[in-house]
């Protein structure tokens, strides 16, 4: 068993409405895994459930193993050691994800005390080093500032510093750049790539932006309506997406290098979890769907080349290779 995290058949419902329909997901030590899908597909809920961070009304089942130990069965104390210490999480909209009335330095030293037993001057020095590492200029002066005194990009750097302070094995970055401007987004992505190498930790990068995911991940899981519908090495998915949904996500990416072309957004929207169709959840929006798709929910099955797919009528090959080579090479 050399996976760091193994999620098996993770299901979540809110007030009896299922929103995750059995997620299986592995994270290997040090790898960079992307989790993509439109908003509302269950990307955040997957990891919040794994860490026991969902509100009490959420009904969670399935197993989440960290180095073989089941977190779902773990006592609260053990779970608190895992959070921030082994699995750290950073969130969208850093300005509201940090405590507005606690000094930012204190929010970092809090992690150092909890997970590395550092207090006093040694905690402060280490926090300053972390702030430096994530690129906060003049850290010593800004240690005692509050979050509203920082820009969005700086706030995200601070949250990253806070997450790294516990020296986690995995960093879950939940849409860390969504709330930021394009140039700042690129800087934060670069920072995450650098830090991952420096700290040799695994990174799970959650995003609705396939282009950003492709930039920093080796492997990608595509989620749709509470299920993983396609999984594989990022290059292979780029070269040849099997699932019409993955293909649709690619078509919606503006191409920077290739010839100008019209963006093709996927028609329609993610179905409401309360009115989930009985067959394939994507069938209503899929131009390849047939009657069969509307009745049978496809399983996620292994494919050649170490990939997985949940689709009865995948995107055909020939035209695609040409099409995508043109645009992404």
């Amino acid at each position, binding site marked *: 068993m050399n996976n760091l995290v193994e999620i098996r058949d993770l299901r979540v419902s809110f007030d009896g409405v299922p929103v995750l329909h059995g997620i299986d997901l592995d994270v290997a030590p040090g790898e960079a895994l992307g989790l993509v899908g439109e908003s509302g597909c269950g990307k955040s809920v997957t990891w919040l459930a794994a860490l026991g*961070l969902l509100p009490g009304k959420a009904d969670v089942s399935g197993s989440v193993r960290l180095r073989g130990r089941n977190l779902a069965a773990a006592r609260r104390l053990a779970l*608190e050691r895992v959070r*921030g210490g082994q699995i750290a999480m950073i*969130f969208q909209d850093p300005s509201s994800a940090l405590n507005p*009335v606690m000094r930012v330095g204190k929010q970092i030293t*809090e992690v150092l005390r909890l997970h590395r037993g550092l207090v006093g001057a040694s905690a402060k020095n280490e926090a300053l080093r972390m702030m430096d590492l994530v690129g906060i200029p003049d850290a010593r002066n800004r240690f005692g500032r509050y979050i509203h005194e920082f820009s969005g990009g700086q706030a995200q750097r601070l*949250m990253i510093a806070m997450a790294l302070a516990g020296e986690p094995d995995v960093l879950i970055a939940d849409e860390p750049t969504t709330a930021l401007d394009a140039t700042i987004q690129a800087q934060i992505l670069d920072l995450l790539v650098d830090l991952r190498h420096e700290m040799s930790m695994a990174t799970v990068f959650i995003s609705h932006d396939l282009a950003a995911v492709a930039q920093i991940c080796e492997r990608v899981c595509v989620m749709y309506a509470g299920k993983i519908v396609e999984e594989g090495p990022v290059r292979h998915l780029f070269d040849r997406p099997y699932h019409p949904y993955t293909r649709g996500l690619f078509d919606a990416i503006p191409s920077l290098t290739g010839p100008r072309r019209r963006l093709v957004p996927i028609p329609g929207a993610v179905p409401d979890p309360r009115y989930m169709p009985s067959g394939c959840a994507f069938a209503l929006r899929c131009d390849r769907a047939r009657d069969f798709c509307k009745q049978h929910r496809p399983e996620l099955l292994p494919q050649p080349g170490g990939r997985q797919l949940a689709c009865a009528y995948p995107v055909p090959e020939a035209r695609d290779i040409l099409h995508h080579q043109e645009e992404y090479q």
Partner: protein
Amino acid sequence: MLRFVTIRLLRAGLTVLSVMTFAFVVLRMSGDPAQVLLGPDVPQNIVQDFRDRWGLDDPIWRQYLSYLRAMLQGDFGLSMRDRSPAIDLVVERIPATLQLTIPALILQLALGIPAGIYAALKRGTLADRGVIVMAIIGFTVPSFVMGLLLVLVFAVVLGALPSGGASSWQHAILPVLTMSIGGIGVLARFSRSAMIEVMGQPYIRTASAKGVRWSDVVRKHALPNAAVPIVTIVGFMVGSLIAGAIIVETIFSWPGMGRLLIVSVTNRDLAVVQCILLLVAAVMVVSNLTVDLLYGWIDPRLRQAPPTH
């Protein structure tokens, strides 16, 4: 900071001035002190004597100006009733009123805030519902009704506590309870919603995701944030305590400022009324100022930020 305090004090001064002017005009227009104090059977020459002594026949604007001038010189005037300095009459009553309002405020803070926070953390449970129901009863029943109910139960039916007067500490129990129940309800409800709001904020989830113990998430992350709105409401409650004192002292014949105010208004004893109003205004100004200063202390976003570079 200095500018802030100066502006607040200027504004407070204006408020006090308009309150006093208003009281002067209303009291003078609504009844003749000579008639009220001396009664209908007093001979005309005595009434005239009284009017001359207090300048009641001067035009009202002249009365007002001389009143203001005296005020500015620190002369709060004499009571028309017994010609002792009004300020002495009022100061004499302060301890009695504090004996009710301070325990009532402490009771409100000590019961209202914890009950609200507890309910928020146990949201949706029976305990939460219990707190909500009690809070609603607490602040919807008017204090004179609450006071009469308490008297009925504890003084009349049980005979356990005195229903009026001020000769022992037991006499204070019912007035203090009457005065605090509404505020406990308001604070409980308000603290509950403030806490629920804070517990739903993203930074609370972040704190949990860092591995902070739940009790510390509540204590170190949620409470300091919930304190901001709670402090606001506590500031308002000081005002309602004063209003409560007027009613409660009257119901329970408690010899405090509230009762003095009622008596003095009835007698059109302007100097005493004005002294009390001035004192009340001063208390309100100080409590508002305290709240504003507390804000800055609790919430760094409201402080004047030093320039960032």
